[in-house]
């Protein structure tokens, strides 16, 4: 079986959507990895109340810097943040005014995306007892642009890009772009358009692993990172 992209590469490709001057919130999962690849001048936001954060302490840097970390500076997923010039802290009300304002790009992890741009982000089942909505509904509703990153198929091989969601809806009609480990797909008013394919894969092979129908863009091309 052919290789799909690693999470790192998916994150690298998604991060290319960001240009200096953009504000962006990164969801948990693959999107978090975009932080490392976002262009300088992109200001990252986390919904607990920080804008303009820089390097996130990963396992290595925590191990190295554990004595000088400021434990009061963390993102929404409790990853500790390095202090960087230009950072600001604010409360949740300000944060969600920002998130609703149409000023942020949201890159969120997806469980399913439909051909209408609906997305299931927070839960796999309506019988889920845990509350997992978090900021996902606000982030997808208010985004200037909503980018969903995910594996193209679930672990059992079933397609995650579908005609109709079978999982609980997080947002209706808001997804603009899907970046997976196989493809980059734009959501348009006339359906899904395959814009890029991962190296080694053909548009036809991608369609086979996609439940929804893809229109092949005239300028379809191989993904670059």
């Amino acid at each position, binding site marked *: 079986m052919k290789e799909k992209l690693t999470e790192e590469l998916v994150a690298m490709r998604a991060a290319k959507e960001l240009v200096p001057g953009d504000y962006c919130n990164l969801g948990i999962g693959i999107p978090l990895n975009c932080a490392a690849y976002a262009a300088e001048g992109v200001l990252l936001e986390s919904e607990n109340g920080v804008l303009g954060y820089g390097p996130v302490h990963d396992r290595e840097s925590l191990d190295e810097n554990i004595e000088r970390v400021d434990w009061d500076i963390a993102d929404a997923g409790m990853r500790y943040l390095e202090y960087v010039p230009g950072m600001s*802290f604010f409360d949740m009300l300000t944060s969600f005014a920002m998130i609703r304002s149409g000023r942020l790009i949201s890159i969120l992890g997806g469980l399913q995306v439909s051909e209408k741009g609906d997305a299931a982000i927070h839960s796999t089942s309506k019988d889920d007892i845990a509350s997992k909505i978090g900021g996902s509904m606000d982030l997808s509703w208010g985004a200037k642009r909503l980018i969903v990153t995910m*594996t193209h198929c679930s672990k059992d091989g079933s397609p995650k890009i579908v005609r109709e969601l079978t999982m609980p809806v997080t947002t209706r009609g808001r997804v603009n772009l899907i970046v997976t480990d196989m493809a980059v797909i734009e959501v348009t008013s006339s359906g899904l358009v395959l814009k890029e394919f991962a190296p080694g894969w053909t548009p036809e092979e991608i369609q086979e692993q996609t439940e929804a129908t893809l229109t092949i863009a005239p300028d379809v091309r191989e993904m670059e990172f």
Partner: protein
Amino acid sequence: MRDKVVTAAEALAEVRDGALVAFNFWGPGTPLHLMRALQERGVKDLTICTNNYTLRADVLREQGAVDAAILLPQTRKIIVAFSGVQQEDSSASVEIARRVQEGTLEIENVSHGLFIERLHAGAMHLGGIYSPIGIGTSLENGKEKRVINGVEYLFQEPIVPDLGLINAAKADTLGNLVCHGTARAANPVIAMASRYTVAEVFEVVEPGGLDPDTIVIPASFVDRIVRIPDDDPYSRERRVEQTLRSVKYRLEKMAEAEAEAAQGGGA
């Protein structure tokens, strides 16, 4: 002038059964000392309103929490946006699932944005708001829907907590508070919305000891101030120690998980 600076037990002496209690639960800025004091206070049938309720037994154990399911046995309803109760190794998740199934615990799901705007609507004493969040989702259930200028909204009720528990870096004796880093989160809005607000702080200074331009929560929203004792399990120093321990623990877990090399996406 009435002295606002008291112990946690004194501050919570008049909390009653059935109270609606709001707190910020998001790492930095979580009022752990007050939450434990409320647990010790022993009131029951609480409704808890919190942004998160991540009862991870593993992490909490590492952080030295008195009980992984803090306040859960005393609670009949939780209004929450994110709760990690399905962690496999969390005894709290089993307990929550059991109590929801037997009908003794109700969970009201909100989004983080709804959580904070409903509290803010409470602070402004509004009758309700029309919010765009949750249209087309399970959050529509039981809510009035209204189309305004062609956009769909859901009616949301304000939340006015009987008791707000908050955490801040420093207070002056009047009750003015400053915050540091991302420890701000929901604390300011909870302070403003609650009928009675208790703040735990790491340091108390005299009036004039805080720059008035940097005060995050003005004194009139703060009814009582509790300085966390230095020998408390939730003192600044011990909290940093616990965080270090918990981070090291999580680093190990992450290393193990990476070894298992789970592939794929997620929320």
